[in-house]
Structure formats: C-alpha cells, structure tokens
C-alpha cells in the first residue's frame, strides 16, 4: 500500500533567530470546511471561484449585539447603516430590517437608499459632495442633512427660500479627540472657532434651523476614550449654541469608526486581544454622555457603524491557480482573487483558512492575486503548508468596504451569495460578464473592425 503524499519541503535551520512562538506549529493551520453549515465544496461547485459569501446569521448577531450594548445604556439610540461600507442591496435591506436607517454620503448612495424603499426621512445625508439637485431632493423628502462646508449653507439657504420654509439641518464638526492623525477635512473645526462662525452664519441667514451635531473622528478607532472626548465636546458645544442662538440639539451623531475583528497591518497583537469589546465602547460613550448632558435631556444618539456590523459576516473563497518559487526561495501562490476584490488588503492582514487539512511543513509564503501588477499581493509572509494547485483559501473578515471598493480591472467580478439564517444560499449579486463591462461603451462607426453579416 502506498503512503499518503505531502509535497517535499526543505528549510534551512537558523540558530540565534528563534522566537518564542516556535516554528511552523501544526495548530497554526486553520481549516474551514463550511460557512454556516454550507460546505465550501458545495458553494464553489454551484457558484464558482472566487466567491464572496455572507452569513446572514453573523450580520444579524453583530447588529443585535452592538445595538443592545448601546440601547441598554442610553434611552434614545438610532443606528444609521453606513452605505459606503457595503451597499449590496441585500446587506442594506438586512440592516434596515434590524432597525437601522440609511446613512449615505453621495447622490448615488441616496438614490440607492430610495430605490430600496427607504423614505427620505429615514436617510441621513452626509459627505462633502452633495450636488445641488440631490440636496434639493433630499431636503424636500425630509432627509437629515449634515452640512460639511460653507458653500453647502449657501445651497441650503437657496433651497429653503425656494421651498418657502425653514430647513432643519445638522452640522458636521471635526475636533481633537486625541486621535492621530486628526481628521480635519470634514465639517467645521470646533477648537479654532470655525464651527461657531458657521452657526453664526446660519443664525444670521434666518433660513436654516440647526437641530443636530455630527462628528466622525476616524476609522478603526481602538481607544474607546476617544469617543468619550468626542461626545463631551459635542455636548458642550451644543449647549453653548443653544444658549447663544436658541438652537436645541435634537440629535448627536457620533459617526462610526468602530473596529471589527480584522487585523491592521503593523499591529502586533491579534485582534481578539487588541480590539476592545463593543460593550467597552458603549459603556465609555454613554457614561461620558450622562456626565455631560443636563438631567432629563436625552438627545437622539445616532451611530453610523459599518465595519463593526458587517465585516465578520463576509468571506471570500478563492482557489490557488498556480504555485511558484520566487528567486529568493520564497514559496508563492497565485490565487484567482487579489486586491481587485480585496481592496482592503492594502491595510489589513486577513485571517486565511484552508478548506481541508494539508500535510507538510509550513513555509513562509506569499499569496498573489491574478492581476498583472506587482502590488497585487494579498498576504506576504504567511506560514502555509505546501499547497497544490486547486487548493482553496478562505479569507475573512472581508464584509466591509470590499464590495464597494472592489475594482473592475481585467477580471470579472464574481458571484456574491448569502447563506440565510435558514441555511439556504441566495445569490445577491450575479457574476459579471462582458456585457456588464461594455454596456455603457459606444464604438464610433468608423472604428468598427468587424463587418456585421
């Protein structure tokens, strides 16, 4: 009887360079055979590779866990689903079913929310570019508008005059919450007096009524205290302008930026150690609010979380299409998906799992994607056992930003499926074909190469 085969591996032994984690431990190999009970084999056989897979169960669990963390500590909480994080219709609809309103940052996203059936008054319109027509539509439909700059004040006053009524607006602040780098390009700066000047401008115009404050201090914020500093400053500013101008703050929108269990490149500790629990954020924020707010005053606390709600629900199943040995001896794999589908690979080091056990000694390996570009590396320096062509690698968490920032560059974008809470599989975005790429193109007659029969 023949012996089981594993690929031949030889590695040089180096003294003096040992680390406390040892070398190529078998337990470092991670295997995922299914997603919510649906086998990876079945998924790839039915829907091809690469394949984005979303877990409805995980998405709903994450939402409920985070919402409960805040709503059990503060009486007036509203989540706004951050469309830019993932605007697949099924994902947005799922978040709306759970109770989130829509948070959009462009005219396109506004149209998407409306097309999905969200009424205007269930949409928060943020972002630095709100074209006049979109802004006018949003105002007339009752959307929550958070002003980014002075020119928007002018546009909104024009719209208010045209509609013949006062328009309720929020304003976006940027402030020092102790986060480096400080995000200062959005909204009006608090500490320099810019925000107060903008409020004066609105008050003197007489056409806008400020009823809310918005601030988004950054992304992947790993320090809950930064949010405490943010809300303290927002509340203080809110009371100052209420006293000076009579504008009462009906809502405080603290933005998003809550981290997922992804691993930022350059962070040494694993996410389960480095990332605070969502309850820590909720406790810190609501405690800061209760200290800053006047007794009996409970403005609506709006949270625009995206990544923390959907990242863990997303997986990308890929297939190794070639194995290579680089000139320096490093093992390299070419996968059928790269940074074209995993745009966030530039910032995050994903969890990589195999779909089955693989024998052999781990080697330091690189995983390249299918692009003809040197930057198309999803992981450089991962420890993997020797893999065969056809082996499958499952990347996670990938639910945030990849299906909005993915590139249509030399490859078709693949199927996206949802494993429902019942364990059924639904296609939520079909794989592209050439017609999707060329539908908007026009070929001038004199450039036609083929004579039509």
């Amino acid at each position, binding site marked *: 009887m023949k012996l089981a085969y594993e690929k*031949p*591996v030889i590695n040089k*032994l180096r003294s003096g360079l040992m680390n406390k984690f040892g070398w190529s431990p078998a337990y470092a190999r991670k295997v995922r055979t299914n997603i919510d009970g649906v086998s990876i084999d079945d998924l790839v056989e039915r829907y091809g590779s690469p394949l984005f897979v979303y877990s409805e169960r995980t998405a709903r669990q994450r939402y409920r866990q985070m919402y409960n963390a805040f709503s059990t500590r503060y009486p007036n909480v509203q989540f706004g689903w951050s469309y830019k994080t993932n605007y697949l219709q099924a994902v947005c609809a799922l978040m709306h079913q759970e109770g989130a309103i829509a948070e959009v940052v462009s005219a396109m996203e506004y149209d998407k929310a409306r097309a999905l059936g969200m009424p205007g008054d269930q949409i928060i319109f943020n972002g630095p570019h709100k074209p006049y027509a979109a802004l006018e539509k949003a105002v007339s439909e009752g959307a929550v508008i958070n002003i980014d700059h002075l020119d928007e004040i002018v546009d909104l006053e024009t719209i208010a005059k045209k509609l013949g009524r006062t328009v309720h607006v929020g304003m976006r602040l940027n402030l020092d919450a102790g986060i480096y780098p400080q995000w200062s390009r959005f909204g009006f700066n608090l500490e320099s007096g810019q925000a107060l000047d903008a409020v004066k401008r609105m008050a003197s115009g007489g056409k806008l009524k400020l009823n809310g404050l918005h601030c988004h201090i950054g992304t992947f914020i790993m320090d809950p205290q930064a949010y405490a500093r943010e809300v303290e400053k927002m509340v203080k500013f809110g009371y100052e302008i209420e006293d000076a101008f009579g504008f009462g703050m009906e809502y405080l929108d603290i933005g998003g930026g809550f981290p997922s269990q992804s691993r930022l490149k350059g962070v040494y500790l694993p996410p389960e150690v480095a990332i605070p629990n969502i309850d820590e954020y909720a406790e810190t924020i609501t405690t800061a609010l209760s200290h800053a707010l006047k007794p009996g005053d409970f403005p609506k606390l709006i949270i625009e979380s995206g990544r923390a709600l959907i990242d863990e629900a997303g997986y990308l199943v890929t297939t190794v299409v070639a194995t290579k*040995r680089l000139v320096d001896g490093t093992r390299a794999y070419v996968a059928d998906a790269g940074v074209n589908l995993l745009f966030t690979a530039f910032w995050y080091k994903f969890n990589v799992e195999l779909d089955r056990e693989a024998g052999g000694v781990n080697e330091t390996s690189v995983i390249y994607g299918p692009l003809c570009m040197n930057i198309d590396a999803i992981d450089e320096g991962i420890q993997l056992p020797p893999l065969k062509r056809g082996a499958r690698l499952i990347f996670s968490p990938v639910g945030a930003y990849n299906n909005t920032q993915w590139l249509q560059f030399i490859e078709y974008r693949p199927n996206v499926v949802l494993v429902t809470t019942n364990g059924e599989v639904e296609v939520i975005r079909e794989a592209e074909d050439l017609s999707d790429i060329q539908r908007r193109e026009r070929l001038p007659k004199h450039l036609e190469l083929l004579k039509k029969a």
Partner: protein
Amino acid sequence: MRTLSQLALSDEGFVFDPNTGDSFQVSATGLFLLQALKDGRGDDEAAQLLTEKYEVTLEEARRDCADFRSRLRNLNLA
C-alpha cells in the same frame, strides 16, 4: 552536484552540509527525493520513484521534483 553527494542525511529528516556547516530540516517526501537525487537519479526517475512509494500522480511528482530542485539551488545545495 558535488555538494549533493556530500550531504549527510538522517532518517529523521536532518540534513547537514559539511562544506558550509549549514543544516536543514526536510519533510519525509523531501528526504526520499533528496536521497534519490543524492544517489544520482535524474528528475524523471526520481519522480517515478515517488509515484511508486506515495499516492501521487506522475504529473504532480514531476512538478514537485522540479520545484524541489529549484529550492535546492536556492539553498546552494545543487
């Protein structure tokens, strides 16, 4: 090929190069292959031997032999 023929191999997969003092760790199939190459077998013959002892197709064995040879060159062993 002088280096290859001079390598000291242990049954447990420890490899010592007396020319440089470097030592290496090799997997079971790697040891089998290294022994075959050390004995002067060509890649095709070594691949054939792999298929006789292990559950592997000739195509995959040839592919892996070529890769292993390339790895040996990278480690200055061939």
